[in-house]
């Protein structure tokens, strides 16, 4: 026993004590002897599960079986990992709920069905992802490059250094989580000013387009009263409800005056060269 145990332990890398108990459980499940199981494991062989003899204990069952009505399903009991079940401590364990679930783990999963090629799986999955990126990201970007070339003369925004700093703060503070900068050609957005097109924002950083309006759209905010004035925006960001009654905008008083002024400058410049009278 000890030689086969040592050999199996060496072969499998599992401590002897655990291996012996696992082998005992395996032997009971397969109708074999512990010694035979250990010898098989030491030799790198599997022990096929055998029908359990009538016993008050529930017979171990195949744990995971795939069936495919379309496939020529052939049971493949081997090769399989031998899965031994042992108690964590020697004393008999009380039933664990669901008790049956744990006892079913005492045999190896045996799958039936076609043989799979993992490379097909990996390459197929990755290929579809890349295809989605090619047609969903890169191909449209070519269209948008054309839009960039055809950008409406005079609409390109030349941000000042202060405004660029403001845009960094806008990104850093996550303003875009609550504010979009894209006006849609639908009735809902009719009062929001100039519609945002790919050509219009061709030279813009897209990171500020946003996707959700918990607060209002800011694409043309600098062209609307009273926010067409930098000092008003700064005052609003410091104490929103003092400027707009009932506003749910949180205060950004924790930002420095310079930072607030940068953000205000950025918001005003995003609206240039648009003005409501242009429409």
């Amino acid at each position, binding site marked *: 026993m000890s030689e086969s145990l040592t050999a199996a332990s060496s072969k499998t*890398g*599992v401590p002897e004590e655990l291996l012996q108990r*696992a082998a005992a459980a395996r032997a009971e499940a397969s109708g074999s002897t512990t010694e035979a199981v250990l010898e098989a*494991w030491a030799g*790198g*062989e*599997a022990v096929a599960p055998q029908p359990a003899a009538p016993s008050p204990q529930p017979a171990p069952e195949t744990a*995971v*079986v*795939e*069936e495919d009505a*379309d496939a020529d399903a052939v049971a493949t009991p081997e*090769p399989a*990992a031998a899965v*031994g079940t042992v108690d*964590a*401590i020697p004393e008999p*364990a009380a039933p664990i709920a669901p008790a049956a*679930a744990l006892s*079913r*783990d005492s045999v190896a999963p045996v799958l039936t069905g076609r*043989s*799979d090629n*993992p490379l097909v799986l*990996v390459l*197929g*999955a*990755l290929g*579809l*992802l890349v295809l*989605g*990126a090619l*047609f*969903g*990201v890169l191909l*449209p*970007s070519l269209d948008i490059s054309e839009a960039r070339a055809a950008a409406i003369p005079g609409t390109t925004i030349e941000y000042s250094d202060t405004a660029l700093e403001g845009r960094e703060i806008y*990104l*850093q*503070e*996550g303003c*875009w*989580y609550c504010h979009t900068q894209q006006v849609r*050609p639908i009735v809902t957005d009719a009062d929001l000013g100039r519609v945002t097109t*790919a050509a219009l*924002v061709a030279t813009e950083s*897209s*990171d500020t*387009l*946003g*996707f*959700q309006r*918990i607060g*209002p*759209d800011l694409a043309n905010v600098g062209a609307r009263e009273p*926010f067409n004035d930098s000092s008003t925006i700064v005052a609003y960001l410091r104490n929103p409800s003092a400027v707009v009654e009932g*506003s749910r905008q949180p*205060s950004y*008083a*924790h930002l420095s005056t310079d930072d607030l002024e940068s953000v205000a400058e950025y918001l005003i410049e995003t609206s240039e060269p648009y003005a409501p009278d242009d429409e």
Partner: protein
Amino acid sequence: MAETSPSDSAARANLFVALGFLVLAAGAWFVTQMKLAFPSFLEEAALLSYGRLRPLAMNASVFGWVTFAGIGAAYYLLPRLTGTQLIRARLANSWTYVAAAVAAVHVISPWLGFSEGRELLEAPWYLDIALIVALAVPTVLVTQTLLRRNEPTIFISLWYVVAGLYWLVGTLVIAVIPGLTSVASALQGAFAWSSLLGLWVLGLGIGLGYYVILRETDQPLFSRTLAQAGFWTLAVAQAWVGPVRLVYGPTPDWLETVAVTLSVALFVGAVAVAANYLRTLEGAWERVTQSPALRFTLLGMVGYLVIAALWSISGFRSVAAVVGFTQWWDGISYGIVIFTSLAFLTGFYYHAFPRLLGRKLHSEKLARTNLRLHVVGMGGSMVLLLVAGLVAGFTWAGGAYSGLVAPAGESFSATTHFVGLVWALLVIFGLVAAAAQLAFVNQMFRTFTSGAPAEQEILVSAAGAESSE
């Protein structure tokens, strides 16, 4: 604690790390919901602003909780489904802590103000690359193990888990491609958002659901073909459907149309998966009453169906005109990451954790409480976010059509009165949701520390001589 195999040690380490991220995410989600209802709450500090906490909650959920639970699940499943031990299991175990450190830095960087914009891609590009490297190692180890498997058939759970790891890493690689500006960059962000949530977060849950159902019921899978149909439907459609969130925006119309069309396939795939789950359960429904793992898995299935149905209809232009740019999409994101994925993963933890630890589940009663809190808290939060989106959308449209209220400037606050009530309710349900997550973590922690000894799986490679190192 009983001894365990190196591969199970690696699985256990990852599952523990994931729980840590879940606690972080639970707290961040709750405070963000507080901030919606009470915007002046804790407004003195930048770190507690909505714009900082929202990415923390989402990133901790996706790149922390789900990702490490997924890696742990892969390490757990591989020996049990391939007939071979995990390759270089000790490296996998050690690497867990390296990857966790990288992920932690990645997750908290937007919270600290290092943000490049775009949901889930806020972290600076160099941290994205570090995360890609950190996640590439387990992906390679999993692949190597799969290539040396002894079972010729790869069970469908491994399809989702292995492909999911590649989708996760592949999406991050595509997302860091530089040079895209303007709308192209927005599309890059939409692609990444859709792929990460649909292919990784949701796909992982679906795959683990198959495993839990079969193991807990001891039933054979109803149809492998149907399972593959569900898998490939998700694989084909999901990477395309991100622009659905940008309908009517400056994105190309043809791309929006393709996205809307393919989003219908998402629901078809969900029906295939649900039908397979339910037909597999036939004759074993009594097990559902005995197994918390099964109950959570079925809850995840319901969430998957609901989310797929909502996503499928949201892109239709008549629907998008109302729900576009509203919190409807926040509801869908929350529904995927928290309600559905967490249900699937909780089911997996309830199944696997006791087996890994050699201990009984701490409390059946707590498991039932956990389920109720999950349904009420997270289900309620998801519904309220969807309702907030509908209310806002109809209010904006009504205001525009009547000419009474414009959703812009000073008058925007007039459109938020009723939404404000929904947000107030969201605080209550958010509190219940946080309690559900903490109840789950407590269940796992107590199972680890004081669960009664029970049977533990000891995996022995019989067919080969694979070294664990």
